[in-house]
């Protein structure tokens, strides 16, 4: 299959992120979807609380006083008395686990469509590629590498609270310091690991 030239690929990735934001009002972030699904599996569905800004403020005030004593929070009215002030990020409702699953299945379908239009799909037990199969020839060794690599990907992306899409694309493009650091970290260790593989195997 002929791969797209870089500018076509770059425009496609950017277009997907923008479309995602325009339709869903949230940034594309795939590892976050895994995280949300696992939270759902571990803790059950999240409570969706619908309240106005004023109710939220009253609830937070009560909780603060409960934790730190009755003198902890001043009784003063909120600084902004404008109803539903327009500025600031809006609280978006959490997506359901079914929606996260739908996204992952849609990704799979995207790969399937791509393979289908290229005359496939053809099935292979491991991964395709001369380099991969040259490095990890045996079934057992390639399976071990994929499983171990996958664990590192899951562990690391949850620890960094983002992956290539959330940090690399949508974070860096908004000049977020944390995203820039995370991207430099994963790209740096990716380069080191790949050079080490080429040197060792």
């Amino acid at each position, binding site marked *: 299959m002929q791969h797209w030239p870089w500018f076509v690929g770059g425009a496609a990735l950017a277009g997907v992120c923008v479309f995602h934001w325009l339709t869903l009002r949230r940034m594309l972030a795939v590892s976050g979807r895994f995280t949300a699904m696992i939270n759902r599996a571990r803790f059950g569905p999240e409570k969706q609380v619908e309240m106005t800004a004023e109710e939220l403020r009253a609830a937070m005030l009560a909780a603060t006083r409960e934790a730190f004593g009755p003198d902890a929070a001043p009784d003063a009215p909120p600084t902004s008395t404008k109803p539903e002030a327009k500025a600031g990020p809006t609280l978006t409702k959490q997506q359901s686990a079914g929606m996260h699953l739908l996204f992952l299945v849609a990704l799979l379908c995207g790969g399937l469509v791509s393979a289908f239009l290229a005359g496939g799909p053809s099935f292979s037990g491991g991964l395709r590629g001369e380099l991969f199969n040259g490095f990890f020839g045996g079934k057992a060794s390639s399976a071990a590498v994929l499983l*171990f690599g996958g664990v*590192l990907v899951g562990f690391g992306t949850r620890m960094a609270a983002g992956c290539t899409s959330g940090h690399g694309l949508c974070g860096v493009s908004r000049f977020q310091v944390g995203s820039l650091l995370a991207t430099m970290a994963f790209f740096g260790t990716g380069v080191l690991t790949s050079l080490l593989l080429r040197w060792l195997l």
Partner: protein
Amino acid sequence: MRERVGVAVTGVVFGFSLSRIGFSSWDEVHRMFTFADLRLLFTFMSAVVFLTLAWIAIARLTGATWAPRNLHPGTLAGGALFGIGWALSGACPSIAMVQLGEGQLGAGLTLIGIVAGNWLYSVVHERWFRWSAASCVDA
């Protein structure tokens, strides 16, 4: 309905694009990381540039603002671990699904690993770490 269509359409187009770009090929990713072929690197960097321009335009036109991404002690360490995993498995979280769709069934193991690793971190975090680990899905 709008949400469902948005999720499904972005998922399919994203998966298709990743496949056509070659991000789902272990060999291509390896050549990116060893700088043997700069195409994927240019793809990624040009996407970031296009996106920066798009966010600026969207902010101007709609007045939208975005919550900042949080920076915490796990950002660097987690990123570093993820990079090692990406170079070994050839997959970031979305790529495992795309590879499965292409018939590269070994990605099933990567997927199991990703779920296990994510789960493992959530347990480890609760036990030993104190910072808030809010995910990017909230942003």
